[in-house]
C-alpha cells in the first residue's frame, strides 16, 4: 500500500492537535500531532515510557490532556467521558489484560455489546419478549466473533482460568463486539510466542480489511509493525520523532538513534525541540 500518493486524499478519522499531558512535573506527552486516515493500520512505536499508552488513554477519555484537542470524524471528543466515547465507535484493548475475570467468555463478549443493547432493570428482570429476543440476537453476534477468533472451545469458561494468550485474544474480541470504526490495540502481541503472534497479526489484518476497521496499534514487535502497518509514527519521551511509511521510518536517522542510542545528541535534540 505504498503508492497512494494519488489525487485521492484519504478521509481523516482521528486527529490529535498538539496534545500535551503531564503528571505533576513529568511530561508524558508534549504537543503531539498526528492524523489517522480511515481504513489504515496506524502503528505507534517508541521505547518504554515514551507516552504511547498515555496517548491511548487520552483518546479513550481516561486522561484529560492539559492542552490540545482530539478530533474524531471532525468532532471534538477531548472532554467526553469514556462511556460517551465508546458509542461513537471507538474501542480499545489494554496493555495489561483487563477483562472481567468473574465472567465467562460469552458474558465478556456480550458486555462488549452493551452500547448496542437496550434492556434495563425492568425488561431484564422479566426476561420476556423483547429482552429475550435481544439477548438471543446479540448472542448470535457474539458467536460470530467467537467463530472469527477461533475460541469456540472456551466459550463457557470463566476468563480468570484462561491462558494469557487466549485472554489477549478475548480482549481483542471484546473490543470487536462493540463494532468499532476505530480500534485501539495496546500491545496485542506482548508476551506471545511466534505462533500466537502470527495468529494475532492475521486477526488484525482481517479486522482491518473485512470489517473496514481503522486500527491504531501500539506494538514493540518491529517485525509485525513493519509488515502490517500503513503508517508508523515514533514517540520518544512524549514527543513525536517521525511519521511515515514503515520504510521511511526505518531509514529515519533520528529514529535509528533513538532506538540504538548511539549518540547523546538525539536525547538533547529531543529535549530542545
Amino acid at each position, binding site marked *: 500500500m505504498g503508492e497512494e500518493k494519488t489525487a485521492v486524499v484519504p478521509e481523516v478519522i482521528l486527529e490529535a492537535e498538539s496534545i500535551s499531558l503531564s503528571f505533576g512535573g513529568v511530561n508524558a506527552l508534549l504537543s503531539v500531532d498526528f492524523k489517522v486516515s480511515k481504513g489504515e493500520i496506524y502503528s505507534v512505536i517508541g521505547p518504554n515510557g515514551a507516552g504511547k499508552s498515555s496517548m491511548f488513554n487520552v483518546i479513550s477519555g481516561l486522561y484529560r490532556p492539559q492542552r490540545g484537542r482530539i478530533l474524531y470524524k471532525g468532532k471534538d471528543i477531548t472532554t467526553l467521558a469514556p*462511556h460517551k*466515547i465508546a458509542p461513537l465507535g471507538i474501542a480499545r484493548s*489494554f496493555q495489561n489484560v483487563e477483562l472481567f475475570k468473574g465472567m465467562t467468555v460469552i458474558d465478556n463478549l456480550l458486555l462488549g455489546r452493551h452500547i448496542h443493547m437496550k434492556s434495563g432493570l425492568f425488561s431484564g*428482570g422479566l426476561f420476556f419478549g423483547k429482552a429475550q429476543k435481544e439477548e438471543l440476537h446479540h448472542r448470535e453476534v457474539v458467536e460470530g466473533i467467537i467463530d472469527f477468533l477461533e475460541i469456540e472451545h472456551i466459550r463457557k469458561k470463566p476468563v480468570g482460568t484462561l491462558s494469557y494468550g487466549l485472554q489477549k485474544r478475548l480482549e481483542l474480541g471484546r473490543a470487536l463486539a462493540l463494532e468499532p470504526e476505530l480500534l485501539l490495540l495496546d500491545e496485542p502481541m506482548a508476551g506471545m510466542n511466534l505462533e500466537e503472534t502470527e495468529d494475532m497479526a492475521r486477526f488484525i489484518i482481517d479486522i482491518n480489511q473485512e470489517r473496514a476497521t481503522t486500527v491504531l496499534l501500539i506494538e514493540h514487535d518491529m517485525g509485525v509493525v513493519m509488515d502490517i502497518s500503513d503508517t508508523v509514527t515514533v514517540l520518544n519521551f512524549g514527543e513525536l520523532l517521525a511519521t511515515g511509511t514503515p520504510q521511511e521510518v526505518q531509514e529515519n536517522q533520528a529514529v535509528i538513534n533513538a532506538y540504538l542510542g548511539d549518540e547523546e545528541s538525539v536525547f538533547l535534540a529531543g529535549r530542545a525541540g
Partner: protein
Amino acid sequence: MNAHICGDYKTSYKKDMVLFQTPFSKFWIIVFLVSLCIIPLFLDDYVLYVCNMIGIAIIGALGLNILTGFTGQISLGHGAFLGIGAYASAYLVMDLGFPFFIALPCAGVITAMFGMVFGIPSLRLKGLYLAIATLAAQFIIEYLMVHVEFVTNGVLGKMVDFPSIMGFSFDTDLKYFYLVATMAVIAVTVAKNIVRTRPGRAFIAIRDQYISAEVMGVNLFKYKLMAFAFSSFLAGIAGSLWAHYVTIITPEHFTIGVSIEYLAMIIIGGMGSIIGSIFGAVFMVLLPEVLRSLSGVLSGEFPMIVNLFAAIKEGIFGLIIIGFLVYEPDGMAHRWQMIKAYWKLWPFSY
C-alpha cells in the same frame, strides 16, 4: 433405568439460555415449588415463623448481594434500608390508609430513593471508604427513625397491623408464609434474570474491572446508582414484609448489627451468587434458633448456659464467619457447585 443423555445436545442459543437446562433440574424445581405449597400445611407455628423469617431474609440478602456481591459496592447500611421499608409501609398503611398491596411496592420505591441518595458517594469512593460512607447512612437513618416521630413514633415503637389484600387478612403464620414465599420466589426470579442480562453484566463488569467497563460504554455512575436502587428496593420489600409480620417496629430493630448480619449472610452464602444469598439467609436465620434449642436441651445439665446464651451466640457467629473466610471464602454456593459437579459424574469421576 432410562438411558441418560450425557452431553450437551443443544441445537439453538435459545435452549442454551434456558435457566433449568435438563429435565432433571426442571423436575426438581417443580417438586420444590409444589412442596413449598403443600408442606407448610403440616408445620407448626414456630417452624412457620422461622420459615417466614428465612423468606424475608432471602429477599433482603438478595438485595445486598446485588450491590456488594455483584456490583462490588460494599454497604454497611442495609439494616437501615430495611428500616426505611418497614416504616414507609407502616406509615402508608396505618396513617394514610393505603391498601397493603400498594404500600408494599411503594415502600420498595421509597427505600430505593433513599438508597440512590446514599449511593451517590460511590462514584468517588471505593472499598473501605465507601463502607464508611454507607455507615454514615446507617447512622443518619437511625437518627431519623428515632426523631421523625410523626412518622415513626420514635423509640416507643409503631404498631402495625397484619396486612390484608382485598379483605383477605394474612393474620396467621400459615397465611403469611404463602405471602412471603410468593414474594421470595418473585424476588429470586427477577434477580436471577437481571444478573444474566445487560444490567447484570454491567454490574459484574464494574466489580471486576471498572476502567474497561467504562471504556466499553458502561455509564459507571448510572449503573452504580441502579445497583443501589435495586438493592434498596429489595431491602424495602423485605422491611415492609417484616414490619407487617412482627406488628411492632422500633428503631432498635434496624441497627448496624442487622447490617452486619446481612453482610455475614452473603459472605457465608457466597458473594456474587443468587443461590448463595438463599443459602446464607437460611443459615443465618437457622443458626440462632438451633443454638437456642441446643441451649434449652443442655440447660438441664448446665443451668449457666441460658444466662450465657447471648454471649455464646455472638461468639459462635464470629467463629463461623472466620471459619468460612478461611476454609470456604467463596461461600456455601461454591460448596454447592462442587457437590453438583461431583454428582454429575458419579460414580465415574473421570
